[in-house]
């Protein structure tokens, strides 16, 4: 019988453990590089292409008038795409962790739609105007719909299984969408306001909108990143998480609040955008594995890159007009969603 070695482990074992960190850092550098390229493309490409020297000149405050004007609208637009993409990516990763559900996504679970309904109702009844108001209302709507969808999805035997949650989310999305239509249709006065927000995507980005939603995004991001280790414990199941000293209910609520704030604020700034929160965490898991301490920052970077790239793509395919970024992400994301569902087993995360 072998006896158990006590004390420090051999160097070989320690070396084995260190290797993944290097790979993860490498991928992180690679995705940051890709992000930088996409940002450059996002400022350069559009109905009027701006060459790099002109961008530099415009950022410096000089240059040709038309080039400078194009750059001036594209910079906030790019920043908004990055911020919203990062928020949705992290939000999706946290939701998948909290629900242990590979199909969780603020779009699929109907949470973005809940935020939208709240905003539209707010515009119709009390005449919301500022982005700060949008954000408060959107977060409230997102939180309420998260609770509703989770409750419906947990009913019946077996608790909140992945497919039941997705179905509850789809049903809720349908109901909320028809509510939105019902509110907007008879109100010609608010029609244009709602439409410009809803399909505005990131195209109508303004600095003042960005600064108003920023506090919500920062708090949501901090709550989410702070929950990384708790999510790692929750992933092992509630019993083990509790056995490891995690306060399970508190950890769930904190993480969910962070996710809801992120997707609520993102929806307030750019309208409902689906599939980013679904696709990004799955992509990142392939790169760095399931450790949330890595997964969450990765999801932020890759989410930002995906949304900015989709925005650029939307400007290219429909030239000289533009395709809304939400439509592009849906086209990219839907096949991924189907691929995940079709996999051998949709197991709990």
């Amino acid at each position, binding site marked *: 019988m072998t006896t158990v070695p006590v004390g420090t482990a051999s160097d070989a074992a320690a070396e084995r453990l260190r290797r993944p960190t290097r790979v993860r850092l490498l991928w992180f550098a690679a995705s940051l590089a890709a992000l930088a390229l996409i940002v450059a493309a996002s400022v350069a490409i559009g109905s009027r292409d701006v060459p790099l020297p002109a961008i530099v000149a415009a950022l410096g405050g000089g240059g040709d008038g038309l080039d400078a004007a194009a750059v001036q609208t594209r910079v906030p637009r790019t920043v908004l795409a990055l911020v919203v993409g990062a928020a949705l990516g992290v939000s999706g990763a946290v939701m998948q962790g909290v629900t242990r559900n590979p199909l969780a996504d603020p779009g699929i679970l109907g949470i973005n739609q809940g935020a939208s309904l709240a905003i539209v109702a707010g515009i119709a009844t009390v005449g919301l105007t500022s982005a700060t108001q949008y954000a408060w209302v959107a977060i409230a709507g997102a939180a309420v719909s998260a609770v509703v969808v989770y409750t419906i999805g947990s009913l019946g035997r077996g608790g909140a299984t992945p497919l039941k949650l997705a179905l509850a989310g789809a049903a809720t999305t349908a109901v909320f969408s028809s509510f939105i239509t019902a509110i907007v249709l008879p109100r010609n006065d608010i029609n244009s306001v709602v439409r410009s927000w809803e399909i505005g995507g990131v195209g109508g980005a303004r600095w003042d909108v960005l600064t108003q939603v920023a506090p919500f995004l920062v708090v949501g991001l901090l709550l989410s990143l702070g929950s990384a280790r708790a999510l790692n414990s929750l992933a092992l199941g509630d019993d083990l998480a509790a*056995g490891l*000293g995690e306060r399970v209910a508190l950890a769930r609520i904190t993480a969910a609040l962070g996710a809801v704030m992120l997707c609520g604020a993102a929806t307030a700034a750019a309208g409902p955008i689906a599939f980013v929160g679904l696709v990004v965490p799955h992509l990142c*898991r392939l790169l760095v594995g399931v450790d949330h301490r890595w997964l969450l920052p990765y999801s932020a970077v890759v989410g930002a890159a995906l949304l900015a790239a989709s925005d650029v793509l939307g400007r290219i395919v429909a030239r000289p007009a533009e395709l809304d970024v939400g439509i592009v992400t849906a086209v990219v994301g839907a096949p991924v969603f189907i691929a995940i569902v079709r996999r051998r087993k949709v197991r709990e995360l």
Partner: protein
Amino acid sequence: MTVAHTLEARSLSVGYQDREVLRGLDLRIPPGRITAIVGANACGKSTLLRSMSRLLAPRAGQVLLDGKAVHRTPAKQLARTLGLLPQSPVAPEGITVADLVGRGRHPHQGVLTRWRTEDDEAVAAALEATGSVELADRDVDELSGGQRQRVWIAMALAQQTELLLLDEPTTFLDVSHQVEVLDLLTDLNRARGTTIVMVLHDLNLAARYADHLIALADGAVHAAGAPAEVLDAGLVEAVFGLRSTVIADPVSGSPLMLPIGRHHSG
């Protein structure tokens, strides 16, 4: 090892909704020894383990760790002394062995503390102790049942607790892997003095590997003591409702229970 921790239950009553599972149960876990909890299905074995590790709140009575009620001990503090491995845990899809074992370090880390060298060392030591160093960068999904159970035990070891509670650590394993897991737990107990409490299905393996046997019936302790002292045909009849004969195990000398059914009995 440092001071041996005492774990005991005093008139412990635990239940779910309208069903009372444990009724005024009293027991003491001998420190530094291996204790096996046996009993018929649904007699409250898992419930007992779950309430001893603070997962279930008692309706009456209490569980005391070193004389302090576990339900008034902060979760993380308790998790540094007492570890729990639930029955058939499910690993997240795509997790590597090293990552899974590393999650056992949770109670030793604060919200802002970084992963430290001592965490790495604890993980490496746990992998070595369970003979799973070679598996470190494999996916848990790819492992065989026996390997997977070793990895879960490694995770519990990385928690570095002096008490380890295991709920049926040998379920779904074939007999050779059952013996392997029980040998491993015995190694830990002997090398580190870890107090081990496990729920076991197999009465004979429990009698062989445990220093202390606790037989549960009707939500209370029916008998407790060294296997050679408590395990006899009368106990089997009372706890499992089964006629049997108990002989000395020719391999280990511990009691060996041979069931008597309606057929094939002489």
